[in-house]
């Protein structure tokens, strides 16, 4: 099962219309991600990292090529099927946390489970476990406005992980954080990756995050410039 491929991208092309012409954001991307990988898409702004994450996350579709995520062809998914895939199999972590401001920490984390028809008791257990992973059980009743940036991102990690997804997509998760918090949240994600065997795919150009990655895929102008596995000494 370790070698199970959960994301397979074949000759992926993504174009965006710009006036009467179009802009090509991704060119012939062919990649595979295995279960349990801790991989990162790195590159400068405009290199296509977020676009690629959006396609993997079924929030967008490729213009050409085939994207298969957890056995589903993204190209052919209906809105409903894509929503189902995201709800059960994919967790998202955003640069700006995207927490729902009127909900408290518990409600924010619980939100992902509300769509899964779990009982209240099951949800409470899962939420408290997820908050324990990120060390925020004491902040369960706090509103996001009262949390620091690092705490908000930890809530976002708990929200992404609470449903035990096969895949977590993190778009520049440390961009709004200081170095201490950046290290903390990446360490948290690394630990979850090891303990739960969840696949993490990052988009980042943060050196602090890159240090933890097992695989670094360099994107330049929408193309894969390099794809290397990193051997960590520990």
């Amino acid at each position, binding site marked *: 099962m370790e070698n199970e491929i959960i994301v397979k991208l074949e000759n992926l092309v993504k174009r965006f219309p710009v006036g009467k012409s179009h802009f090509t954001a991704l060119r012939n991307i062919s990649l595979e991600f295995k279960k349990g990988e801790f991989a990162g898409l790195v590159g400068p702004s405009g290199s296509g990292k*977020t676009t690629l994450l*959006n396609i993997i*996350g079924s*929030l*967008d579709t490729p213009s050409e090529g085939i994207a298969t995520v957890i056995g589903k062809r993204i190209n052919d998914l209906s*809105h*409903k099927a894509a*929503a*189902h895939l*995201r*709800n*059960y199999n994919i967790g*998202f972590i*955003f640069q*700006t946390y*995207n927490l*729902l*401001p*009127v*909900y408290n920490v518990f*409600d924010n984390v619980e*939100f*992902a489970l*509300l*769509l899964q028809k779990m009982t209240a008791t099951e949800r409470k257990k899962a939420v408290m476990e997820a908050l324990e992973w990120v060390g925020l059980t004491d902040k369960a009743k706090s509103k996001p406005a009262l949390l620091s940036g690092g705490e908000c991102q930890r809530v976002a990690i708990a*929200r992404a992980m609470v449903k035990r997804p096969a895949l977590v997509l993190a778009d520049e998760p440390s961009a709004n954080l200081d170095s201490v918090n950046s290290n903390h949240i990446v360490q948290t994600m690394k630990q979850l990756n090891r303990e739960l065997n969840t696949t993490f795919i990052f988009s980042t150009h943060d050196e602090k995050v890159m240090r933890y990655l097992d695989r670094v895929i360099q994107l330049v102008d929408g193309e894969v410039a390099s794809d290397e596995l990193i051997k960590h000494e520990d």
Partner: protein
Amino acid sequence: MLEIKLAFKNLLGAGLRTWLNVIVLSIAFVIILFYNGMLDGWNEQARRDTCEWEIGSGEIRHPLFDPYDPYCYQDAHKAIDADLQKLINAGEITPILVTQASIYPQGRMQNIVLKGISPDQKLLKLPSDKLNGGDGDIKAIIGHRMANASNLKIGDRLMVRWRDVQGAFDAKEIVIADIFRSNVPAIDAAQIWVSIDVLQEICVMPNEATYFVVNDEYLKTHREALAPNGWKFASKELLLKDLNDVIKSKKASSGIMYGLLLAIALLAIFDTQVLSIFRRQKEIGTYIALGMTRFKVVRIFTFEGTAHSILAILLGSIYGTPVLSYFVRAGIPMPSSVDQTGLAISASIYPVFSLGLIVSSILLVVISAMIVSYIPTRKITKLNPTDAIKGKIL
């Protein structure tokens, strides 16, 4: 269920903006109830008074009789046959004879309608028993409007001139035996009631009537043939048609007033919805990323807008119940000038808030709020989630 729960949570989380919308909408809701309750109360009172004082459960009329055409009175009368007499004796109908006449209060001539009614009748609320006796005087009863207009009081004597069946003028003094108060101007303004026996005698119309007022018993026993031979039947609904039309037109005109108020409240909700969708794109994108379909998000926002109306109804019930209950008990005083309108209006109208009125008002507010909430949310279906997550403007 999830959408409703989320909608209420979001709505209450929005704070002051929500409550401003809710307050305006609740005022519109209470005013809709107040106006409709007042009109329903008036309708109920006017129908009841008109039946009790004027029309009973319907009228059997001479075919030529038209109450709005005084020229027809001369010919619109005929003899009461044996069958009708039986019904009179049984108390199922009461005869009324109508003729034109003139009076001369303070030396000025005033045209009136002279009506004859049995002093013993129990079918109408008119105090006709006051017409009994008289020691040779013709006793008459009039309504307070007639008394005010002609400056008459109990015990006053006045000259009445009429034409008999041959068209010959005759005149005699009558004495005012009673002045009654009724909310029904149709039996009061410019009318003098005397005993039907007296009127038949002075007009030389022995045992004749212009029309009969019938009771419910008559309707039950004559369901198959309501109009006796040579007479026509006017149903209660037909006789109340004018009143119904007036109430309908009043409802329409008051509808414009509360419609405007409702429109202002709905506009505020619409505006809030547009602003919400504009400001909360990141949230919409997050909902989609977390696994909601666009239609589910549309439902959340639509429920959110609609929830304004639920909160407005709850709030309106809190302050509206004591206020409207007070009016139900104390009534809504009408200005004295309404007496001159010719409509059956009492000094105070007691509003009636039926279950149907409350349910229809709730539905009106909820459905209209739902429609104005849904319209702006359709934009969400065209939203690109990747742009929404970043909070890019639609």
